[in-house]
C-alpha cells in the first residue's frame, strides 16, 4: 500500500513521444498546446461531431480577496489564460466558453452563496475553482444537491467528494508526501518536526505525513501550530531550534509561510535547517528573500519541466502577465479546462450527470508531463507524476527526481 512507481515506470516510450509531437503539431499555433489535447484524448471523434446548442457556461469561484487571495489570483491568471486558449481553438462543442466569475473570499458561507447564485441565477453548466478545504466542503455538498459538476483545482481528500459530482485536479496530501518523506529521511535523517497553520488542511496534511513517517521508522519530535495572521513566529522558531530536528516538515501556508521563513532566516534557523513541505511555493519565493535556497519540495509542476506544452504555457503566461513565478494553481487551472472540454465533447451533451460521468478515466495532455494525465475513474482525482525539486537561487524549482505516479492514498 501507498507505494509509488519508480521513475522508470513513468517515462515515455519513443512511440508516446511521436504521438505527443503529432498532437502538438496538429494544434493551432500559439494556442498554448490545445491542439495536443485532440491528438491525445479519446474524445477527438466526439469533438468533431458534437455541436452544442449554446455556449457552455462555467462558473469560476476563487478567493480573490482575503487570506488566500495570492493563491486565488494566481489561479485566476491560469484560468483566464486557459479560457483564451480554448476559445481561440474553437471553444467547447463549437462555441466559445461563457464564464461568470465570483470572489468568495475563502469564506465558506460566501462560497455557498456564490454556488447557489451560479446554479439558480446564472444557470451555469459546471463550476470550477476554490482553494481551501473549507470552500471545497461547501461546494461539494451543494454540487450534490444541485447535480452540477464541480472541478476543484486543489484536492481536498476529506471532503465528501466520493458521493458528490466533484473532480479533483490538485494533488492529494498522499501524492505530496509519499515520495517526500522517504527522500528527506534518507537524505537528512529521521528526526522530524511538524509545523502547520492552524486550520483543517495542515492538520490533515500532517496527519497523512505521520503515516509515512511511521512507515519509514522516523520520529516526530514535535508538532506545532500557529493561527492565520500570526505576526511573530519567534516562539515557534525557538522551540524548533531547541528540538534540533533533522527535517522540518511544514504545513504553514500562504503569507504565513513567508513570515515564518523570513523570521527563521533572521533568527538563524535557516538556511542551515532542512525545511520542506507545502510551505515551499514558487510564487512565494521572491518575498522569502532567498531564505529557502537549496531546500527540497515535492511538486506536481515546475517551470523547469522540460516538455513542449510547458514551454508554450510559460511563454503565453509571461507574455500576458509579465515576469514572475508561475504558481502551481495557475498551471492547474490552465490545463483543467482541457479536461472540461474533453468531458463535454465526450459526453456529447451538456447534461451535468453525463458530463460528470465523462470525466471518469478521461485523459488529456497537460503542462506537467509529456504523457497524458488521467482522471481516476473511481476517485475522480487526477493522477499526477510527482517531482522532488530543489529550490535554486532565483526561485526555480529544479526537478531532481521524478517520483512517478503515486498509488494508494485516496479511496472511495
Amino acid at each position, binding site marked *: 500500500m501507498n507505494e509509488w512507481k519508480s521513475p522508470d515506470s513513468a517515462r515515455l516510450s519513443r512511440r508516446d513521444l511521436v504521438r505527443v509531437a503529432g498532437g502538438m503539431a496538429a494544434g493551432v499555433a500559439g494556442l498554448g498546446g490545445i491542439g495536443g489535447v485532440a491528438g491525445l484524448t479519446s474524445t477527438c471523434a466526439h469533438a468533431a461531431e458534437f455541436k452544442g446548442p449554446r455556449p457552455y457556461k462555467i462558473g469560476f469561484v476563487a478567493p*480573490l*480577496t*482575503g*487570506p488566500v*487571495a*495570492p493563491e486565488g*489570483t494566481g489561479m485566476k491568471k491560469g484560468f483566464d489564460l486557459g479560457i483564451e486558449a480554448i476559445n481561440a481553438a474553437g471553444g467547447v462543442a463549437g462555441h466559445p466558453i461563457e464564464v461568470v466569475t465570483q470572489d468568495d473570499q475563502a469564506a465558506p458561507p460566501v462560497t455557498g452563496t456564490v454556488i447557489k447564485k451560479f446554479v439558480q441565477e446564472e444557470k451555469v453548466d459546471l463550476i470550477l475553482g476554490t482553494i481551501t478545504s473549507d470552500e471545497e466542503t461547501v461546494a461539494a455538498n451543494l454540487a450534490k444537491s444541485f447535480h452540477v459538476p464541480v472541478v476543484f483545482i486543489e484536492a481536498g481528500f476529506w471532503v465528501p467528494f466520493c458521493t458528490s459530482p466533484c473532480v479533483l485536479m490538485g494533488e492529494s496530501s498522499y501524492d505530496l508526501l509519499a515520495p517526500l518523506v522517504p527522500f528527506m529521511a534518507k537524505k537528512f535523517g529521521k528526526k522530524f518536526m511538524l509545523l502547520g497553520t*492552524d486550520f483543517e488542511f495542515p492538520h490533515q496534511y500532517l496527519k497523512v505525513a505521520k503515516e509515512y513517517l511511521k512507515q519509514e521508522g522516523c520520529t516526530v519530535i514535535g508538532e*506545532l*501550530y*500557529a*493561527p492565520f*495572521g*500570526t*505576526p*511573530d513566529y*519567534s*516562539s*515557534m522558531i*525557538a522551540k524548533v531550534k*531547541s528540538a534540533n530536528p533533522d527535517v522540518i516538515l511544514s504545513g504553514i501556508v*500562504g*503569507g*504565513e*509561510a*513567508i*513570515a515564518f521563513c*523570513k*523570521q527563521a532566516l*533572521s*533568527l*538563524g534557523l535557516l538556511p542551515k535547517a532542512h525545511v520542506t513541505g507545502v510551505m515551499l511555493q514558487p*510564487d*512565494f519565493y*521572491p*518575498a*522569502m*528573500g532567498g531564505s529557502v535556497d537549496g531546500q527540497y519540495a515535492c511538486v506536481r509542476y515546475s517551470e523547469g519541466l522540460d516538455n513542449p506544452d510547458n514551454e508554450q504555457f510559460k511563454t503565453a503566461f509571461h507574455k500576458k502577465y509579465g515576469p514572475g513565478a508561475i504558481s502551481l494553481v495557475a498551471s492547474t487551472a490552465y490545463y483543467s479546462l482541457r479536461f472540461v472540454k474533453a468531458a463535454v465533447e465526450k459526453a456529447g451533451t451538456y447534461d451535468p450527470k453525463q458530463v460528470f460521468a465523462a470525466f471518469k478515466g478521461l485523459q488529456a495532455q497537460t503542462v506537467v508531463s509529456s504523457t497524458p494525465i488521467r482522471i481516476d475513474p473511481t476517485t475522480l482525482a487526477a493522477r499526477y507524476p510527482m517531482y522532488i525539486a530543489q529550490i535554486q537561487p532565483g526561485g526555480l524549482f529544479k526537478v531532481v527526481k521524478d517520483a512517478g505516479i503515486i498509488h494508494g492514498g485516496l479511496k472511495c
Partner: protein
Amino acid sequence: MSGWIQILLDFIWVSAGLALVAFSLGLILGELKIVNIAQGDLMMVGAYSMYSLRELPFLLALFITFVFGLLLGFVLERGVLRWVYDKGFMATLLATWGVGIVLEQGVATIFTVSQRGVDPPLKDLVTIGAIVYPEYRIMVAAGIVVLLAILLILVYRTSIGLRLRASIDNVEMASVLGISPQRTFAMVFSVATALAVLAGALIAPTIAINPTLGLSFLAPAFFAVLVSKQGSLAGPVVGAIAVELVFTLLQAYLNITVAESILFGLLALFIVLKPQGISWSWKTAREKAS
C-alpha cells in the same frame, strides 16, 4: 538558561513594536476620542512604503515613510475625520473603518495581493550567552525605546505636552485658554498616523507584506490601550508591555493558537472586571499603597 534569554529577547522585540502602535492609538483615543480601526492598515501602508522604497538606503526610506505618514495623517484628519467629530462615536468608528478598507483596497489595486518582502538592512546575528539573535531586531527595539522615551518626555516635560494634555483633559476649557482644538486634532492625528506608519515600516523586514497584515496587530494594540486608564499617554506603553509579557510566557509553553485564545480570554475578563483600566503611574500606586 538560554531558553529564558531567548524568551526575554523575543519579549523585548514584540513589546517594543506593540508599544509604539499602542502609544499612537492611545494618543488618538485620548485626544480625538476616536477608536481608530484603521490603525493596523496605517501600519500596512508603512510596510508597503518601505517595499516601494527598497532600492533606497534604509534610513532614508524610513525618513521618507515617516514624512509620508505625517502627510497622510493630516489629509485623513482634514479630509475625513473632521466632518464626523460631531456625529458621535459610531460615525467616527465607521469613518475609520472605511478609511481602513479604502487603504487596503487601494494598496491591493496598486501592488496586487501578492506577498511582498523587504530585506533587513542589518543581517548579522549577535551572540548573547548561548543564543544568537538578529542585530536588526535588537537595534529596532532599542530605537523604539529611545523614541518612546523622547515622546513621553515631550508629553510630560514640555509646554507642547502640557497643551496636549490640557486638551485631552478638557478640550473646551483648553480652547478657551487659546489652544486651538482643530490645530491640535490635526497635529495629534498626523503624528499618531506617522508613528503607526513608522511601526509598520520597522517591522516590514521581518514579516510577509500583504494588504491585510495590519489586522493581526490591531487586537493586541487595542487591549494594550484598554487595560490602561483612559486619557493616559504612558499607559498604553505599559499596557503593551503587560500584554506581551503574558503572551510571550504563554507562547513559551503552549501552541500559539492556544496561547492567543487564553490571552484574549484573560484580557476580556480583565476589561469586564476593570472597565476603567489601570493607572500604571507610580504616583497612583503609592497613593493607593498609603
